[in-house]
């Protein structure tokens, strides 16, 4: 049995809980401050506007390009490299009374002065009202997800644990958004999908730990809640390391190989997996203890063996 990843003795995870949760609180506060002051660098999907992606036949000087985009309809254009030095992305704002076709044509004709062989790879136009609706829907989606989870977990476990897990999820979402805000990374639809996936992933992690906590509360009759939690986290630690590891590997593969269009998605997931893993221990479990979780709370949950009394469902 190869067991390098399993822990032999129970580790007192909760000993570090206070300093770490203070750190978490600072992270959350910092994120909120950044979100309030710097805001989020909303991508095209949310703000509306036009994006043109071009491929030049050779590396191109962005400053030279910028100096050519002088037409009034291109005012405020953002020019940046996208993937390689030959790929250029131009973002244009919605302009009153100007069609996006005109903007695109203007960008292409100016770009042709630098390189006649320039290729238009992708053009996207999103009307501003569509973007705004999406932003509202996205925010709503995260909220609905959290509420659904709160209900499911309170039903399957206990409200203290449910509150702990939802607090951990909110923590993950806020910190992930905070990092996007601090570094002003572009937040588009795929990033939103990433954030929601983080919610799912982080919850997965939390549920595994909670499941063990519930089981151990019933097994270890005489133990203090802290000890039960420590034992549970220790027991599930090797699983946590392995699953987080394999997921990280594929997300890194997505980040490095998946191409620029899902870069944002991979970034959100990378962040979320780190934050989500430690929050299931130091936010979710710790908060449940602070809320006074103890053995009695676990007793009335008769549904615990729901899977077990249905042999036909069982593997």
């Amino acid at each position, binding site marked *: 049995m190869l067991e390098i*990843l399993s822990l032999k003795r129970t580790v007192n995870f909760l000993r570090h809980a206070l300093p770490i949760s203070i750190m978490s609180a600072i992270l959350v506060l910092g994120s909120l401050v950044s979100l309030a002051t710097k805001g989020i660098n909303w991508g095209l999907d949310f703000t509306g506007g036009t994006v043109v992606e071009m491929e030049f036949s050779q590396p191109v000087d962005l400053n030279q390009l910028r100096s050519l985009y002088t037409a009034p309809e291109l005012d405020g254009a953002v020019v940046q490299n996208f993937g390689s030095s030959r790929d250029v992305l131009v973002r244009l704002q919605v302009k009153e009374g100007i069609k996006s*076709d005109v903007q695109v044509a203007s960008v292409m004709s100016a770009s042709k002065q630098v390189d006649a062989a320039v290729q238009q*790879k992708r053009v996207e*136009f999103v009307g501003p009202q569509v973007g705004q609706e999406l932003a509202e829907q996205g925010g709503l989606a995260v909220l609905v997800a959290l509420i659904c*989870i709160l209900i499911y977990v309170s039903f399957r476990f206990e409200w203290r644990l449910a509150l702990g897990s939802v607090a951990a999820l909110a923590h993950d979402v806020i910190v992930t958004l905070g990092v996007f805000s601090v570094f002003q990374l572009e937040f588009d639809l*795929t990033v939103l999908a990433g954030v929601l996936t983080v919610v799912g992933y982080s919850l997965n992690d939390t549920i595994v730990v909670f499941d*063990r906590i519930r089981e151990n509360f019933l097994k270890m009759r005489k133990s203090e809640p802290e000890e039960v939690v420590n034992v549970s986290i220790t027991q599930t630690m090797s699983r946590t390391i392995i699953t987080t590891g394999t997921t990280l*590997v594929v997300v890194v593969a997505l980040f490095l190989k998946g*191409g620029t269009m899902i870069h944002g998605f991979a970034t959100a997931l990378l962040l979320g997996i780190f934050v989500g893993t430690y929050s299931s221990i130091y936010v979710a479990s710790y908060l449940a203890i602070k809320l006074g979780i103890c053995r009695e709370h676990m007793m009335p949950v008769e549904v615990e063996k729901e899977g077990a009394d249905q042999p036909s469902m069982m593997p």
Partner: protein
Amino acid sequence: MLNKYPMWKNLMVMLVISIGCFYAVPNLFGEDHAVQVVATRGAEVTASTQAKVDELLAGKGIAVKRSELENGQLLVRVQNADQQLLAKEVIAESLGDKFTVALNLAPATPEWLESMGGSPMKLGLDLRGGVHFLMEVDMGEAIRKMEEAKVADFRSQLREEKIRYAGIRNNAKGIEIKFRDAESLSSAERFLKSRSNDMVFTDVTAGEDYTLQAVMSETYLKQIKEEALQQNITTIRNRVNELGVAEPVVQRQGAERIIVELPGVQDTARAKEILGATASIEFHMVDDKADPNAAQSGRVSAGSEVYQRREGGQVVLKKEVMLTGDHITGAQPSFDQYSRPQVSINLDAKGGNIFSNVTKDNIGKPMATLFIEYKDSGERNADGSVKMQKIQEVISVATIQARLGRNFVITGLSHGEAQNLALLLRAGALIAPVSIVEERTIGPSLGAENIENGMQAMIWGMAVVLIFMLVYYRGFGLIANLALTANLVMVVGVMSMIPGAVLTLPGIAGMVLTVGMAVDGNVLIYERIREELRAGRSVQQAIHEGYGNAFSTIADANITTFLTALILFAVGTGAVKGFAVTLMIGIATSMFTAIVGTRSIVNAIWGGKRVKTLSI
């Protein structure tokens, strides 16, 4: 006896996995270059067309792989891209303009597999290139149109019933009917209420101003909006067919938006022109009693309105619409005996009846054809939506010579206009104008690049995970790897099976992510088994307890992830939806393969035997 699966369970596992594999297989065959022939102008693609095309291509030395006639369209598969272009030219030239000939990529699934419902996954635009439009229907205009129809209705109904009214018009608040006295108001109210139960009538009389207000009921409004959307979808679908695009998507999104996806199209300007144009015609009687001098300054009676004539000048028409473009079933451009362009119109039975009655009653009187077009004005409203401009022009005024039936001609157009009008009328009129609120064009090379990137990520991620599992769990790791592979094949199989599922780039990301997360189920089980073994249980006991204890954890963890995927699916659009679909399918299949699938193998190898150690 512990750890023995009944035969039916093993069979079920095998059956489910083989079904998954079976439907995944079509994805291995790739695509054929093909040419698609669709009939447009009253023509029909028949077996003789097929024979003609086959003969034609054989004559040119183009080898045809397979030619299929299905749902009134012909699909001819050829060997490569060069032959495809050549074939398209040859076919288009000989069939003439009654058919649309388009380049297509058809799945190269063998016939026997196809006949059993096997087809490859559909690729989203981000993977194959093309144009995506999100269009918004102007509901205000649809409602205004219906109100106008109601105004005409009320007028004729009150006249029939001999109830005197002072005026009927529609304004921002609804329809206003004015009366001279309270008595006619109350009898009109009673009468109209009994006739139209989809309107809500309120007496808003103030002083001597006897007024009845009619607004549409909530359900009626809803119905109008629904109908406007449905009608526009049908119309746009017809127009897309005129464009000759292979496998277009026209789909509603929400209450007033329509998604149009045109794979392979790069010429967005032409596509937009056809999709967005809302041309229609209406026939009105000319108000010959109107005083031309008063009309000059815009003073006309309440039932009439001044319109511009195309060749200049003005004409006063009655507001009441004799016939709308909705009843038109066919329209062909042609020339009259003086070689002036004209459009021959065919009406449906109902339209024919109406038209026949109208013309019978009005022989000798002038009738006008009003051409209505909505155009993107290039300006935007304060909320960012596109401002549409309504252009109304009288294109012809003709004296009705005789009773007209279901077929007649419209003159007074230029050659290009006759062509365009015929095309637009044939494709049906948009009941309300639409504007494009989102547009995405993906080049075909970028699509191919996206697939390549996704596959790369998948291969690297998968390789590392498989190697790790094998090294760390040895025998059981191998079983988990089998399950993981089966899982991936099943996701592909299910995606291919579901008709509406489309693989997008985020969808590939979802699959890659599933690979990473799918091992979780096995890891949970295996760690449990190890724990039980460490605690000194027998091998059989450990396997039994391991699977048993891990089950509820896996179920809880996956159900919650599934919930978030479901929410993503519900609120997401396009790409996000694609991601959510693969994630949901991945969760379901990975639970099956990780729990039931591996158990079946584990039982077969170790179950019910005297075993001292496990390869875990």
